[in-house]
């Protein structure tokens, strides 16, 4: 089975609140002293793919769309022994959203040929739009199953499982299919072996420009313009404390209950 895993490098979501800043003009987060990390749900997707490969004759290709720094995400994927890795270099597009990213990824996937399974994280830890998987599937004309947490390869294609509000849903799909992966107990990302980390830097990594995949900046920008970021700011945290007064305990409880009821009604 040919598996493609799309990985996104993001600004560390665990950066301390004080170190997190945004640029209100560029409408982007500022890197500052934060680190760049691979999006956790993408790592869950990669882990799921690695587990699938263990039980089958499969090949994994990792792909990312990002600046030079994003190579590190692919090197980490190489350390976990993916077979191939491709980076599509990001042009200067302010806030390239899911639609922009999906346009790029779909074009690159088309160029690479067919995959049986195209896996993405369910959403990214920075913008959290959660649209890329669906849009890639749409652009490639494939089925999409989202929020999957377990995949089994069967003769007919794949068995996919996901948690819903009312129970577990099991689906059968033929391939190729696009799935978005969510985190679960069984797909916690593994730690690479040190020797593999060292070897990862010697593996051959392919970098494409938009031109290489038949796109240009304008096409991507046009796709990305499907949504606009109007304003970006860090909400100010305020807190206040008021002691409920009253003559008796019953009065205070009644007053407190009334206040809560008011708040509930106003919401």
């Amino acid at each position: 089975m040919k598996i493609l895993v799309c990985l996104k490098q993001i600004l560390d979501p665990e950066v301390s609140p004080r170190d997190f800043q945004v640029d209100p003009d560029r409408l982007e987060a500022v890197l500052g002293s934060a680190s760049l990390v691979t999006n956790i749900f993408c790592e869950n997707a990669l882990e799921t793919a690695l587990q699938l490969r263990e039980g089958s004759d499969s090949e994994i290709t990792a792909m990312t769309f990002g600046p030079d720094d994003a190579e590190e995400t692919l090197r980490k994927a190489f350390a976990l022994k993916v077979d191939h890795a491709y980076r599509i270099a990001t042009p200067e597009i302010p806030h390239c959203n899911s639609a922009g990213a999906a346009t790029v990824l779909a074009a690159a996937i088309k160029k690479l040929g067919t995959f049986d399974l195209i896996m993405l994280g369910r959403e990214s830890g920075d913008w959290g739009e959660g649209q890329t998987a669906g849009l890639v599937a749409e652009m490639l004309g494939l089925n999409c199953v989202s929020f999957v947490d377990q995949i089994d390869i069967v003769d007919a294609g794949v068995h996919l499982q996901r948690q819903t509000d009312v129970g577990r849903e099991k689906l059968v799909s033929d391939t190729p299919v696009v799935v978005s992966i969510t985190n679960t107990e069984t797909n916690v990302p593994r730690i690479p072996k040190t020797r593999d980390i060292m070897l990862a830097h010697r593996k051959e990594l392919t970098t494409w420009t938009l031109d290489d995949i038949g796109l240009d900046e304008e096409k991507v920008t046009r796709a990305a313009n499907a949504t606009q970021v109007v304003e970006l700011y860090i909400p100010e945290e305020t807190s206040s404390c008021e002691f409920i007064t009253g003559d008796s305990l019953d009065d205070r409880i009644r007053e407190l209950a009334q206040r809560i009821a008011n708040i509930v009604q106003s919401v």
Partner: protein
Amino acid sequence: MDDATRQVLWNIKHVWVMYVLLVPTAVVAGYGVYRHVRQWRRGQPSARFDRPIERLARVLKMAILQATIWRDPLAGALHAMMFWGFVTLLIATTVVMIDHDFNVPIMKGSFYLYFQSLFVDCLGALAMVGVALAAIRRWGLRPKKLVFSDEANGILVLIFVILASGFLLEGWRIAATNDEWSSWSPVGLMVARVSTTVVSVDALRTAHLIVWWGHLLLVFGLIAWAPYTKLLHIVTAPLNIYTSNLDAPAGSLQPIDFESAEVFGVKNLEQFTWKDLLDLDSCTECGQCTSVCPANAVGKALSPRDIILDLQRQLPAMGRPLSGHTDVANEPSSIIADGTPLSAEALWQCTTCGACVETCPVAIEQYPKIVDMRRFLVMEDAQFPRTLQGALTSMEQRGHPFRGTQASRTDWADGLDVPHIKEVDQPEVLLWVGCGGALVDRNQKSTRALAKLLQHAGVKFGILGRDESCTGDPARRIGNEFLFDTLARQTIETLNSHQVHTVVTACPHCFNTFRNEYPQFGGKFEVYHHTTYLAKLIGENRLTLDASQIGTITLHDPCYLGRHNGITDEPRQILAKVSEAPLIEMEQHGTQSFCCGGGGGMSFVDEPPDQRVNVERSKQALSSGADTIAVACPFCTTMLEDGVGALQSDRKVVVKDVAELLWDSVENSNAAKADVGDRDKS
């Protein structure tokens, strides 16, 4: 008195048989030792023969004077009695050999009387007492730390019979020859008197002949058998002490050459150094290491003694594929195995506190071997506890091990006006805050206290702020030497780029890394632990303070300050200035302190509620009766505060860093002065 002597080999004929028997004895014993030497030589290289004078001094102290064995007074006493007894008997036998075999008549006169008769008799008797005590201990008291084996029983019985028969021979010779100098051999004389009341002198003569040959066979038998038993330590212990780690009495970790290493860490015995293998053969099974192991004390699986003995048990099969595993390209299976003392579970319980190494009477380095095996589990196998994976990933991605912290590197300094080191003109020191001091809420108070003390003393200092990163200590002890290597080189580069020469830090782990480990990577800095630096400032009268009535204090010595770096006086000097009440010492303190449970990456592991090292140490601290538990390490602070909290003592006991207590005293002093000033004005 000048003609005092005795007849050597009295009553013995065909003495040549003894010399003939000596040959197989030497061959069997020699082969026994050679087998081991051959195994050690298959280990990896390790430079342990420099500084011979220091090494000999250590052998004198630890082997000849038996210094470390006295930690267990009974074991120390009985071993010293047997050791010195047998050494004396060996010298006496050598004297006989020189006199008789080399025809140098030295066994006469006052030397014969004072040494060869009286002294040897007394020391022989002392050895008998030692054997008796050992028997009482082994068969009566049965301390948990001993290994109860047939071999150990056999050795004890054999030694007793050899000593006893020696005295019988002496007594019967005195009786039969009517020795005029017999009063110089009190034990022999006693045996002579008792014996003659029971049997005739002729019968004694016959018995002497039989027992003499029996005694000889037993002695030769013991010599031949010794290298095949734990008595091998007679040879290996002095050698192991001679080649011990001179620079780190509590053990140290060595870097890996990642370009050339075939295996990262230790999977099989072959990856250990020859010194590690010699360690295994030096073990006397005394159990001292396990008896001081904090993990073992709270009921965990880890037992450093059993790790050493299990590795020793595997030594003969070294390099050979274990049965049933030959199909795997003839590769021997890993020494780490579930259900043995070398289980991954046990290896992940070590806090690297170094108590095992520090207490070992024969200088075995136990915990560095545990870290060697962790290296394999982490770097080659990539199998280890998930919380530790989180800490390592965080160190790799964010430069600190505290996943999910909300703090930034400089939150603690709010309102204190602490500058970045690059903004300070000719700084005296860099204040290295460390992850524990900056990113854990509780410790920010200690860090603030330290910064205020430095400001108060007028020290020109700066910090690295966001340019600071983890020194790599937890990574190294968890076993990710590759990550440590990276972090160490980065930190050294950062410090060099800011032209830092002198570093002060409140974290003993950072301190130890700067002081003992960065030199391995070319980083050489003058580094002070904050207690040392603050004691220096007090000595230079740069801090004015008042001892106050804050009640009683006990001090918890951090392992990486006391045991690993020998710094135990300075924190006490400061506390003596802080409180009027004398310091209350816990039973385990100084270099023999009991770990808080947080070292070796273990503060990132969830311990079972009934097996928490920090709770055990907190119990000890609470039972000292002190009102304040003084600490000198951010990890110890949080571990002990959690421990004290979990115990829910009736008394209110606080855990405070030495810097916090000192700052309180400085503030008291300032307030007192302000009061005086106000009164003067009015």
